């Protein structure tokens, strides 16, 4: 029995006793989705917390059979994504926000790297590269960004992705490919620009 199957079985039996285990099992991915959709760690933490609160309230009203049938990964992703969409449209309504490139490193825990060959310089380079990809991702239209984030940052399967985005599998596949293509174009364009500047 995988973790999620056990979790939904336990949630159906004892929501209050199991909810912490649900949060601990899914907090990194919910936070990552929110961070890559919103770009701001503070807003991402808020969105992830709101998502869990909504999940708790929904679960409290569900019949046990409905809880046992939940596709937990896709279901939570939908909730996080909806909250991110609301925040993004609110942000659009109040006008463009300054992009914060440095927030990623502001006291937040990074994944533990166990590679002993990681030199400080390599870590710095890797962070710079991550920031660069994160910035490029934030320039994608939200629909493509969501598809790429859920598929490749979160690692959702295509059936789960179709469920989370409420679109046919063919459509979400196309969105992921189109999103990656846009990222590639933007990445290479930036590289070309850097080369031109050096040779000019």
């Amino acid at each position, binding site marked *: 029995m995988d973790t999620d199957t056990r979790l939904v079985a336990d949630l159906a039996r004892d929501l209050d006793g199991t909810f912490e285990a649900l949060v601990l099992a899914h907090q990194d991915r919910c936070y990552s989705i929110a961070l890559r959709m919103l770009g701001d760690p503070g807003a991402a933490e808020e969105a*992830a917390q709101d998502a*869990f*609160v909504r999940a708790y*309230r929904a679960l409290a009203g569900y019949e046990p059979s409905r809880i046992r049938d939940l596709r937990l990964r896709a279901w939570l992703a939908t909730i996080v994504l909806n909250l991110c969409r609301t925040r993004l449209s609110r942000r659009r309504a109040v006008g463009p926000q300054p992009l914060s490139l440095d927030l990623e490193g502001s006291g937040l825990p990074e994944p533990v790297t166990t590679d002993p060959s990681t030199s400080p310089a390599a870590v710095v380079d890797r962070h710079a590269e991550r920031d660069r990809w994160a910035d490029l991702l934030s320039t994608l239209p939200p629909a493509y960004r969501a598809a790429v984030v859920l598929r490749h940052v979160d690692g959702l399967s295509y059936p789960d992705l179709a469920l989370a985005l409420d679109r046919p599998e063919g459509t979400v596949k196309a969105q992921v490919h189109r999103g*990656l293509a846009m990222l590639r174009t933007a990445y290479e364009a930036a590289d070309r620009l850097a080369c031109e500047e050096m040779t000019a």
Partner: protein
Amino acid sequence: MTTDDRTLEAAMADLATTAPPTLAPNTLVAVGLADHMARMASVIGPLYVAWNGLGVSAVESAEFADTHSARTGRPVVPVDRLPSALAEAIDRRLAGDRRVRIDLDLRGHSEFERDVWRKALDIPRGEVRPYGWVAGEIGRPKAVRAVGTALGHNPVPLIVPCHRVVRTDGTIGQYSLGGPENKRTILASEGLDPDEMEAAARRGERLIGCASTGIVCWPTCHTGRHMLPKNRRPFRSLAAAAEAGYRPCKMCRPASGTGTIAA
């Protein structure tokens, strides 16, 4: 330079990160499965306030704060200070503003207890009512002792002002938050004189009538505060006041605590 799919996908997978350590505990607090706790200054010294997404769940002295988790079954997530909105709401409530809304988490308590605490909230700052009044007001006139027990179990003293309920014989009575001395201190801070209140009760002054209006009140009722001393008429009971031609005040409703309804 081209970027192959695998590089691109690896770069995206590398954007997955770990949640900040505050996310899980704050989420549990938000849904009411854990409590935040912070210190608050008060006239009886430092107190500890516990709250979660449903509302304030406890106001306790230091010794009880240590056992909060064991009593409630909810882990405590200590924080430096109360959220400013909550701190301000509590300050306003303690200053006598009864309109300010403070959500309370009273899960696990009986409907009777909640009725008693709701009624205590009706007693204005600077006034007191006897246990029997609360019992009468909630439609359980014989449950005077149970009212006392419920007030003793009030998890949020000060916010729910159980200190404003005194014994039917006019003495100050017990207080759950550190004993009767604290109750006297709080009442004094609200402008009352506990010694004088008890002395008046010993003299048999349970109710005070106003000769010019013909209305009889609980001694601390604010409507009677501006009464001229020459108009002040103490009574032992509502029956005695009724006999003298006085009708009970509609604000402090002395009929609720005396077991008799004036004709």
